[in-house]
């Protein structure tokens, strides 16, 4: 094969490639961006999953805490205890019948 023919053959081939190459690169980059976005969506899904589960478990703990506090509150409102405080500590007494008054508004 003579060099000139070879040269021509090569340059023809290269011309085709030149027009094809950059377009191909753009396609690849485009595909990359799409795939990147797609995978980042999936990854965020997992990431938010973690966060959500963390928050859910926090809610659970807080709800349990609320229940405990409710129980504590109810314990404090135990009527025996309240009565003791009222009658013994604060020295309140039950009203006697004659202590009732009826108020008329005129």
């Amino acid at each position, binding site marked *: 094969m003579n*060099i000139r023919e*070879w040269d021509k053959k*090569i340059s023809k081939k*290269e011309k085709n*490639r*030149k027009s094809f*190459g950059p377009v*191909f*690169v753009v396609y*690849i*980059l485009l595909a*990359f961006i799409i*795939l*990147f976005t*797609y*995978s*980042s*969506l*999936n*990854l965020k*899904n*997992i*990431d938010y999953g*973690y966060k959500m589960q963390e928050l859910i478990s926090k809610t659970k703990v807080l709800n349990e805490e609320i229940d405990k506090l409710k129980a504590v509150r109810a314990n404090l409102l135990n009527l025996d205890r309240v009565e003791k405080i009222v009658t013994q500590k604060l020295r309140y007494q039950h009203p006697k019948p004659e202590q009732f008054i009826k108020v008329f508004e005129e």
Partner: protein
Amino acid sequence: MVRKSGADKVLILSVLLMLLFGLLMVYSSTMILAKEKYGDSLFFFKKQIIFLVIGLFLMTFIALFKYPIYLNKNVVIFIMVFVVAGLIMVFLTGKINNSYRWIRFAGISIQPSEFAKIAVVLYMSLILGKHNSDVNNLRKLFVLLLPVLAIELLILKEPDYGSFFLILLIVFILLFVSGIKLKYLFASFLVLVPFSAIIIMLNPERLTRVLAFLNPEKYYNTIGYQAAQSIYAVGSGGIFGQGLGNSTQKLYFLPYAYTDFIFSIISEEIGFIGAFALIVLFAIFLIRGIAIAKFSGNKHTYLLVIGLTFMIVAQALINISVTIGIFPTKGIPLPFISIGGSSLVATLLICGIILNVSRHRKMVLINE
């Protein structure tokens, strides 16, 4: 007369595809981890991009060399000396993950063994490609191989069995291609196989590794864990995979999912289709590499390109073979894909050299 032709475009495209593919997989396999560890989901991704840019710059730089200085004897010897120095400096840095592999330098870590691979191929092609070299002159060959032996021993000392085995493989391939008599080759095998067997037997850790490889389920809780998890990941990918980003194995089940075991995550997320496509890309790379070598027209560049091409592909195949349980775990990254600055830069340097040769092929034709 020197005439330039464009660099090999198919090779460039396949490399580009693999690089972008790698970036994608690095992002996918590290996002959750990076967010937890560094608070930045793009931590590893950004790092990889920086090395990618450095690597691409170096690749272009080398590909555009007017004169192939990598063929120059003095340059090659200089690189060899540099690499050996690096491999010695490794021992001053201290152990990371139970081995001396890294040099810390101005805030970045460099892995000299990655560059040693290139140096060895440069050196081998130099000594075998010379007009007066006779590969079958054993005494001379032995003397010439001494620097390679030194590098191999240093790498063995690190220890980095993956690189050791890879360099050994390439040296044999180059010797084989450059026409060494088969009986010498067999003879050296006869020496090497018992030798390596003894080395393995002497070290209980290595022995269990091999045993774990032979029976991964039994060693599942200890050393076989990683291998088993890798196979689970690959197997659960099926034909079409779980979808990009959907791997569950990377969520701490599979250690080093983003370096040595990234192929497992690829298989899990994109399934057989993705894994097969990647292997095809490496096959294209191999074929183009051999074609470039053939067209380069002289023995020195031929051996150089053959060596470099086979090395990258061999590394890839070793890595993949490990992830699917054909080979025992080695600690060797997947070229173009795995995280790792040194590996990526070294791989792109290799591509730069191959591309530079491909640009000069017509020059050789004219010489003819």
